[in-house]
């Protein structure tokens, strides 16, 4: 059994007990506990079930590498699946639930998979779910979906908030163990700006639990000493609970800070994503202990040896009362010594090396501990907890020489430096044969914008596993980094007196025993989370998978949420063995960020809810809102779609708005249309290049419709251009086009025609623009007074200015509805005032505000196109029947050459036509395709019911459309065939009499 020891526990505060629940049952813990340590203290050995076979699983590790102890954490709006119990600190009221079982953790129906395990080998899915094809959709996929995944997906909106923070430093140190702290201190002395990130809640890493001596201080004392010195340096910042999650191009790194996971608080963001730019990054990320593979190595109670020390020293928890230690290296003897010091029983230390260990082994022997050298574990017995261990000769086939009763097993297969962050951005690896591990290859670092290496590994992440080398490498790395950021340190580094311990070399033993038969290999797990066994890798090798990347995908080794932190090197070694190849020639899989999964909230940052996306509002937006407008998003703007009154349907509102406008006068907020000033002696020449039609001939005080193409000859925008004076034009764009067209103009001015003397400014937001539309429009403006808007003074397509109702205004006589229409532009600060003045002045005339839908119906009645409706990036002016807007006189304009290409002038292109449904009540569906002889010949681009005409109208792009006038086309949609006649797209007032008054 596992239990809380009466003493020990560096991280826990025994004076502050707290309670949380696991699967609904209250569990006691102390402040400073992780869920894992508290569960272990309460003898919860089984904490979850595995993904594929639903095998009982217990806690294996004490940190980010934990593969088994994944929990559904929290409830409701704070629910989150797949949280590691080993890295989650407990607080009062925390709720945790185990995953991947039904109906309960103890009794799980899916566990039948375990008994059928021999029918689920590697590649099971690929081999099984092949035929018949129909079964995939109806049988296999639903089944797999149901059984896939560990935790559950949240069902309600996340209640927490998240944010980013941009930080710029000279040197970023990732990892707050002894190497990271020594490096930060040394680098800090140079005066460089240093930021150190530590993923856990405490600093010191292995130094807190390993018996070390530096300058006469023990591990925790040395860490405290380092922290005190760093504290005095204002240029060094330490952040705990903040993981260096990824390293990217040009010194960019992500820090994943968990602010409230351990202590919920209302105002504080839950997670903060640090977006860091560092000139040099030191990876002091430590090393991960490797498991050993032997039969039953996944039974709850089998743990990493170093982890056992963590639970004893950091949390005062005994993972077992009677633990066997099995190892291929000297480090595990530290665990035996720690167990012994805590008063726990160690029936045996099984050392796979025939020659055994060095000084630490001698110490163990001196304490009277039993050491079996040249031995291995044949099998662990037990189901939901370890009962006994069968010991065998490591060189044999697994015949047990002895069965040792025990309640836990501490295993050590050696160490793998955490090279992930070194490798994220392209750092290459070298094979260290002596320690059987991959280490950073200093000759091939990730490089930055100057072609220099910018990541420097330090400590055991560099492969310096011994204390003295670890500290020394950190200091060297820090001095190199300081040097490279121009902060060379002159003084020698302070030497550290480190107690040396003579260790015997580890033996590259991956599997126990050496010649284990299939029976044992099929129960020896490599990847605990995805249930990949030694026999699966064997099978993959036999089936011809030679590449580690392919083997990974075939067997799913290392593809679970832990990304193979414990399994990859062991799997690689087994694959190399099966292929009879050297490990370095087999190579590694790719390390990709983030180091551990990070929350989607942190990735989204503050951009959620009302801050998800910027919403642009006009000066009249508040009025629209308070008058019942339904809004529609147009680009980033929100625009009133219609203003339904009490008891009125949306369609009813649209009809009312149109009839009121055509019958008397309507009012429309046109402020979102782009307004770009183009000024300079060459402005006319420039606009002749930008627009397809001629602008340089426009007279001051006059307006002209302008059409704009891209270099391909396709329509990209349109709008009215007004010439304000000799060298100043005001170009209107579509709502979505303002920024885009301004950028387009600047691009050509800056990169092609930089000799032109032209300046541009986007004044879209400087002006509120209000359209006063309808036969009584002139009366409304005249009622306001101040500007002569008579037919003579301001003819159609004229522009004038003055004080309209006392407000500085520019008035354009332009029309998008076919009615007599004025667009009044005033400074935005006067926009709402002008709107209200117009409403007041128009009251006697029945003035009616209308929304974008009424605008669209009215323009469609007139056959006016909307860029983005009638065009889709492949439509030329000629396709639209707007050849009249393409100058034949101009030598050059953007798109001129493009639209001359043979396929753009060929017969049979889609052309814009009007459509009149044969039925007067049946509107054509949006985007309906016209079908002829089984082939699509075009599609509907706009379709409305016209209240003015009393029947539906539509526009469409139809192959050879203009030659098809009078033809009836079929539009089959959803089993019904709509029929419509091809007609002229101008449905209303073709001669333009209404606007010419």
């Amino acid at each position, binding site marked *: 059994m596992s239990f809380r020891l009466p003493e020990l526990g560096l991280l826990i505060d025994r004076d502050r007990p707290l309670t949380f629940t696991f699967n609904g049952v209250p569990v006691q813990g102390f402040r400073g506990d992780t869920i894992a340590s508290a569960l272990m203290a309460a003898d919860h050995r089984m904490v979850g079930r595995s993904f594929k076979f639903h095998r009982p699983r217990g806690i294996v590790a004490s940190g980010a590498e934990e593969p088994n102890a994944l929990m559904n954490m929290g409830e409701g709006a704070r629910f989150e699946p797949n949280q590691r119990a080993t890295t989650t600190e407990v607080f009062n009221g925390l709720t945790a639930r185990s995953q991947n079982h039904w109906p309960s953790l103890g009794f799980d129906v899916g566990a039948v998979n375990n008994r059928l395990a021999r029918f689920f080998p590697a590649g099971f899915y690929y081999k099984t779910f092949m035929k018949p094809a129909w079964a995939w959709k109806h049988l296999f996929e639903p089944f797999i979906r149901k059984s896939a995944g560990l935790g559950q997906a949240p069902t309600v909106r996340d209640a927490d908030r998240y944010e980013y923070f941009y930080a710029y430093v000279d040197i970023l140190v990732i990892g707050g163990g002894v190497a990271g702290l020594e490096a930060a201190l040394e680098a800090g002395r140079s005066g460089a700006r240093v930021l150190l990130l530590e993923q856990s809640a405490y600093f010191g890493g292995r130094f807190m639990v390993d018996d070390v001596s530096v300058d006469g201080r023990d591990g925790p004392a040395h860490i405290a000493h380092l922290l005190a010195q760093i504290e005095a340096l204002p240029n060094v910042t330490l952040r705990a609970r903040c993981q260096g999650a990824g390293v*990217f*191009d*040009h*010194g*960019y790194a992500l820090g994943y800070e968990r602010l409230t996971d351990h202590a919920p608080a209302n105002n504080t963001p839950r997670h903060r994503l640090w977006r860091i*730019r560092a000139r040099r990054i030191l990876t002091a990320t430590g090393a991960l202990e490797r498991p050993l593979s032997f039969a039953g190595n996944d039974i709850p109670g089998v743990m990493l040896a170093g982890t056992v020390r963590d639970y004893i020293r950091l949390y005062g928890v005994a993972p077992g009362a009677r633990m066997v230690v099995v190892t291929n290296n000297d480090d595990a003897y530290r665990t035996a010594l720690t167990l012994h010091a805590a008063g726990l029983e160690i029936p045996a230390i099984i050392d796979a090396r025939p020659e055994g260990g060095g000084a630490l082994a001698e110490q163990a022997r001196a304490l009277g501990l039993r050491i079996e050298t040249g031995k291995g574990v044949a099998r662990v017995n037990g189901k939901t907890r370890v009962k006994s261990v069968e010991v065998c000769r490591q060189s044999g086939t697994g015949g047990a020489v002895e069965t040792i009763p025990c309640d836990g097993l501490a295993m050590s297969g050696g160490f793998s430096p955490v090279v992930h962050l070194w490798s994220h951005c392209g750092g290459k690896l070298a094979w260290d044969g002596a320690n059987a591990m991959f280490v950073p290859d200093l000759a091939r670092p990730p*490089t*930055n*914008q*100057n*072609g220099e290496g910018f990541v420097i590994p330090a400590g055991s992440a560099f492969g310096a596993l011994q204390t003295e080398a670890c500290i020394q490498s950190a200091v060297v790395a820090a001095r190199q980094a300081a040097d490279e950021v121009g902060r060379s340190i002159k003084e020698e580094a302070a030497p550290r007196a480190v107690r040396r311990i003579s260790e015997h070399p580890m033996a590259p033993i991956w599997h126990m025993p050496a010649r284990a038969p299939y029976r044992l290999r099929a129960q020896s797990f490599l990847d605990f989370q995805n249930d990949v066994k030694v026999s699966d890798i064997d099978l993959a090798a036999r089936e011809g998978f030679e590449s580690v990347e392919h083997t990974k995908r075939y067997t799913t080794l290392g593809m679970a949420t832990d990304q193979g932190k414990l399994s990859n090197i062991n799997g690689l070694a087994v694959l190399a063995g099966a292929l009879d190849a050297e490990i370095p020639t087999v190579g590694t899989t790719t390390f990709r960020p983030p180091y551990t999964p990070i929350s989607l909230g942190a990735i989204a940052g503050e951009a959620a809810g009302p801050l998800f996306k910027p919403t642009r509002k006009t000066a009249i937006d508040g009025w629209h809102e308070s008058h019942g407008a339904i809004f529609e998003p147009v680009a980033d703007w929100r625009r009133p779609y219609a203003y339904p009154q009490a008891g009125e349907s949306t369609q009813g509102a649209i009809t009312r708005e149109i009839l009121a406008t055509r019958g008397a006068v309507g009012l429309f907020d046109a402020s979102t249309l782009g307004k770009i000033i183009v000024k300079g002696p060459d402005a006319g020449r420039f606009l002749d290049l930008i627009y397809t039609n001629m602008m340089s001939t426009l007279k001051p005080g006059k307006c002209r419709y302008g059409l704009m193409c891209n*270099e*391909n000859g396709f329509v990209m925008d349109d709008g009215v251009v007004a010439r304000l004076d000799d060298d100043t034009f005001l170009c209107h764009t579509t709502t979505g086009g303002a920024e885009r067209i301004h*950028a387009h103009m*600047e*691009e050509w001015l*800056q*990169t*092609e025609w*930089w000799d032109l003397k032209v300046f541009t400014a986007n004044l879209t937001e400087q002006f509120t623009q209000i359209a006063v539309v309808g036969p009584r429009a002139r009366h409304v403006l005249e009622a306001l007074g101040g500007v002569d808007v008579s037919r003579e003074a301001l003819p159609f397509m004229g522009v004038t200015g003055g004080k309209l109702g006392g407000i500085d205004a520019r008035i354009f006589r332009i029309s998008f509805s076919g009615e007599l229409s004025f667009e009044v532009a005033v400074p935005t600060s006067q926009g709402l005032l002008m709107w209200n003045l117009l409403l007041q002045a128009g009251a006697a005339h029945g003035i009616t505000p209308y929304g974008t839908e009424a605008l669209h119906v009215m323009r469609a009645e007139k056959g006016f196109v909307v860029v983005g409706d009638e065009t889709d990036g492949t439509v030329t002016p000629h396709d639209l029947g707007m050849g009249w807007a393409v100058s034949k006189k101009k*030598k*050059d304009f953007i798109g*001129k*050459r*493009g639209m*001359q*290409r*043979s396929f753009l002038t060929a017969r049979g292109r889609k052309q814009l036509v009007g459509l009149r449904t044969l039925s007067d009540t049946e509107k054509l569906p949006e985007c309906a395709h016209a079908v002829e002889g089984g082939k699509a010949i075009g599609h509907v681009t706009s379709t409305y019911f016209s209240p003015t005409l009393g029947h539906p109208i539509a526009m469409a792009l139809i192959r050879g459309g203009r030659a098809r006038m009078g033809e009836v086309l079929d539009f089959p949609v959803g089993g019904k065939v709509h029929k419509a006649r091809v007609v002229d797209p101008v449905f209303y007032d073709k001669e333009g009499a209404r606007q010419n008054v």
Partner: protein
Amino acid sequence: MLLLTCPYCGVEGEETEFHNGGEAHLKRVGDGSSDADFTAYMFERKNPRGIVFERWRHVYGCGKWFHAARCAVTLEVFGTYSAQTSEPPADLIAKIRAKRPEWEATP
């Protein structure tokens, strides 16, 4: 994520401040050009595995277009320069040749 220095305002900014505009030093062909020339101008891009000359705009900054010489493999940036030129500056070419003696292509 790249770091680029805008040669107009001197800001060293991250990629999100900029907008990429594709290959630099294209020669515009217009009215009267052959279909082949026009197609090459519009669509045919070098896309070398190695040194590229490309257009960028400091869209969230001074708004200026500029050019950058960059290695598409290692992402090393050799330099940025004015967009108002038809070829890269000679000193930049010399710098690239010094760093990459094997580089043969010309922009």
